[in-house]
């Protein structure tokens, strides 16, 4: 059994073997994209609900595409167009969904732990599509898949994650997954944007960008979440770009094979210079393609058996 769980809530909960198993299956799904018919029938007759309580383009479309390519039936709803705007609670909404017999729930929510709460309440499988600043496991998996395609075994490989670590669920999921696979992770950003305690999870903290990227094999550049910042923690776009922006100058000093990743959406010329974002060292669109494959793999593997026999709790 590749996945022993009913739900995928974070990379904190997955073992190195489980992560590698998912990525192995994802590689087979990636091969399906190159065929004339880009879907397989394995999830026919299963219903997946995409419940996005927070704005999302990339992740939502990626999940939808993954579900379509598995031939699942799909229901989408977002907070704005549902009874949330009438004051219904998260639990009531979820239980109504469950009563209609869905097989899987994909949930994006601004509160950390929202997916975990729903997983506990519901009998169906739940995949966390991002919960507050906690975790974004599918992004972590697609990032690691993209790294492994170029670097192979991640043991001893040096990954530098740059940006607003405090607000980043992408950083947390990357950190959990990469450390389990034996990579050396360095977190870099302004001191106001790196919370204490992450060194205990196995990361190196480096406030100086030049030092942080010097011997890196890959840079994962996070989006500056302008909407989440108070003026106190964020120095301003231009100052941030000057201190921590990934510019041509920074890229020139990297190891010759090192490459640059970004989870999107990009703030051009804030965390990443346009020339780098469009340049030969970035693999951003590869990340996007891998995202669909990773989500197909998770949905497929979680559906591969009766969830109730896997220790899932009843509602």
């Amino acid at each position: 059994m590749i996945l022993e769980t009913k739900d995928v809530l974070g990379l904190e909960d997955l073992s190195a073997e489980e992560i590698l198993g998912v990525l192995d299956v994802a590689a087979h799904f990636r091969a399906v994209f190159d065929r004339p018919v880009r879907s397989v029938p394995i999830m026919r007759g299963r219903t997946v609900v995409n419940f996005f309580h927070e704005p999302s383009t990339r992740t939502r479309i990626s999940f939808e595409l993954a579900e379509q390519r598995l031939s699942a039936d799909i229901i989408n709803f977002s907070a704005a167009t549902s009874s949330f705007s009438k004051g219904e609670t998260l639990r009531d909404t979820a239980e109504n969904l469950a009563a209609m017999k869905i097989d899987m729930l994909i949930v994006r929510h601004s509160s950390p732990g929202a997916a975990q709460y729903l997983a506990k309440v519901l009998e169906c499988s739940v995949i966390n599509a991002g919960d507050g600043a906690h975790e974004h496991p599918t992004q972590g998996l697609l990032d690691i898949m993209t790294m492994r395609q170029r670097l192979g075994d991640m043991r001893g490989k040096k990954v530098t994650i740059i940006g607003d670590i405090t607000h980043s669920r992408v950083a947390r999921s990357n950190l959990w997954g990469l450390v389990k696979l034996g990579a050396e992770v360095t977190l870099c950003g302004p001191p106001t944007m790196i919370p204490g305690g992450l060194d205990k999870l196995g990361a190196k903290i480096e406030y100086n960008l030049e030092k942080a990227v010097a011997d890196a094999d890959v840079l994962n550049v996070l989006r500056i979440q302008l909407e989440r910042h108070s003026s106190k923690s964020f120095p301003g776009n231009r100052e941030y770009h000057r201190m921590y922006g990934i510019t041509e100058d920074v890229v020139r000093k990297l190891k010759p094979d090192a490459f640059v990743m970004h989870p999107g959406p990009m703030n051009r010329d804030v965390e990443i210079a346009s020339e780098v974002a469009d340049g030969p060292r970035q693999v951003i669109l590869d990340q996007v393609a891998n995202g669909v494959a990773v989500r197909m793999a998770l949905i497929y593997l979680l559906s591969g058996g009766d969830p109730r026999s896997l220790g899932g709790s009843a509602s």
Partner: protein
Amino acid sequence: MNFAEKAVLMNASEITRAMKRMAHEIIEANKGVDNLVLLGIQRRGVPLARMLAEAIKQVEGQDVPQGALDITFYRDDLSTLGPSPQVSSTEMPFDVNEKIIILVDDVLYTGRTVRAALDVIMDWGRPQAIRLAVLVDRGHRELPVRPDFVGKNVPTSQREIIKVKVEEFDDKLEVVVGEVTE
């Protein structure tokens, strides 16, 4: 679940002889090997397809293109699968449109694998024809599927298990029959 081996049904030279005969039958039915491709079903159909290709080459002196087919994502038993099945890769190094495809598998049993394989091929294109070659036909079909080329017909009970061993995965070439013991 344990597997207790009862008897050897085919040894290496019997398998080789059966493959040679099947190669001749395929060439005869097809009037040559033009437009022909061999497609092995993962995993043991793949080495068998390679053996067939070698046998065909000895007769016709011509290489027949080979591919591999994984049917995991086309199975009809997702909810009853036990452990996550091993997924292998599909390799289709040719355009299937207008080809005559010889689908190769080790054992033909319920016919469900072949049903899934036909769906995979259709998602790659529209071949002129698909024929089925199996090393062992053990009966008990659940779908209207019939092989065109058979190495050996073996009457079995449903309790029995037929195992085809190939050099690549099992270090020897033979077909054995056995039973599941608790």
